[in-house]
């Protein structure tokens, strides 16, 4: 286990929504208790992930039971492999609830709610669509995905006591960052993290963005 270097920076949930990594920049991806350093290669560039829908109730026409006034709620969960990205790569997504009256709770991994106070924070149409329409995109739920190793799981609950739901969809959009893993080690003289550059020289990691992803369930 290596301690976090003091030069680690964060640029999460910024406004406006634009790539947080450019060619040549480094990122430290934290997966649970371990992490790795990556770099966006000089010959690559961030790519847009245009908006796409993810349906939690597949295959259609699966139904989501009505909200109950007694006992535990009937939930359904979906492993969002649609959000996995090519290896090696990092996906950055912001999420909008598309269908009204459905609570979405994002887990990464399956047992850990992504957005937490003391308990998990679900989102729904009313708490995301207004931010989207008003271009307050920094207030949308954000999640990062590394390769296909940190697939988000979304659990849905019907908010309506009168009608079952035939759709429970989110819209995800964001950026894909092609990556190259950096071979890192501890420099014994300075006790700092170094990596081998293309020429084989050991170099300090001057600054790296940190993002956190969950481990695959």
């Amino acid at each position, binding site marked *: 286990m290596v301690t976090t270097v003091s030069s680690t920076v964060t640029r999460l949930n910024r406004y406006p929504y634009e790539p947080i990594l450019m060619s040549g920049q480094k990122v430290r991806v934290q997966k649970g208790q371990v992490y790795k350093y990556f770099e966006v290669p000089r010959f690559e560039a961030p790519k847009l992930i245009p908006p796409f829908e993810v349906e939690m109730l597949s295959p259609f026409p699966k139904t989501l039971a009505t*909200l*109950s*006034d007694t006992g535990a*709620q009937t939930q359904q969960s979906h492993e969002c492999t649609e959000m996995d990205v090519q290896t090696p790569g990092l996906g950055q997504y912001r999420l909008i609830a598309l269908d*009204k*009256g459905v609570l979405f709770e994002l887990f990464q991994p399956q047992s850990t709610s992504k957005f937490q106070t003391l308990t998990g924070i679900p989102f729904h149409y009313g708490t995301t669509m207004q931010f989207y329409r008003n271009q307050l995109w920094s207030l949308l739920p954000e999640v990062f995905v590394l390769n296909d190793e940190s697939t988000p799981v979304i659990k849905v*609950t019907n*908010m309506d*006591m*009168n009608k079952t739901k035939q759709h429970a969809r989110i819209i995800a959009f964001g950026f894909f960052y092609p990556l190259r893993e950096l071979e890192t080690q501890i420099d014994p003289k300075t006790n700092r993290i170094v990596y081998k550059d293309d020429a084989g020289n050991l170099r300090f990691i001057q600054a790296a963005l940190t993002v956190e992803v969950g481990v695959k369930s």
Partner: protein
Amino acid sequence: MSVDAGVDELGSYTEDYTLNILSANTSFQLARAPWPSPVNKKMQLLQINVTPTVGTGLGSQVVIWDQDLSNSTPPTRGSAGGAILTIGATGSAVSGTATATTALSEIQTVEHTFIAGVAMQATTVNVNVAATLKII
């Protein structure tokens, strides 16, 4: 009506409900409010259409109050005899008369809030009620 018209509070959205009242002076539920946890929300009437659909020619009166007819846990406000909102609908659908709809939009109705649910009765049979509710 446009999607989400009248929705301004963060966390709110609209839902559409419809009900065919098949018995006069009998209580019906247009919609139960999503009061249970983890939702914990109430409702507000944005728009309502009332249409007597069978050709008696008689006008109908629809009375509305706040009650979950399936569960007594949430507090009730009003009753069939003490409505918080009454809508009169013109009789229609007799021979030679087109079906008439009484439509009230959000600027024509009082912003009644329903904690438990939207319960209603009509004074005649065969009345179609369709409403857009804001879930807050």
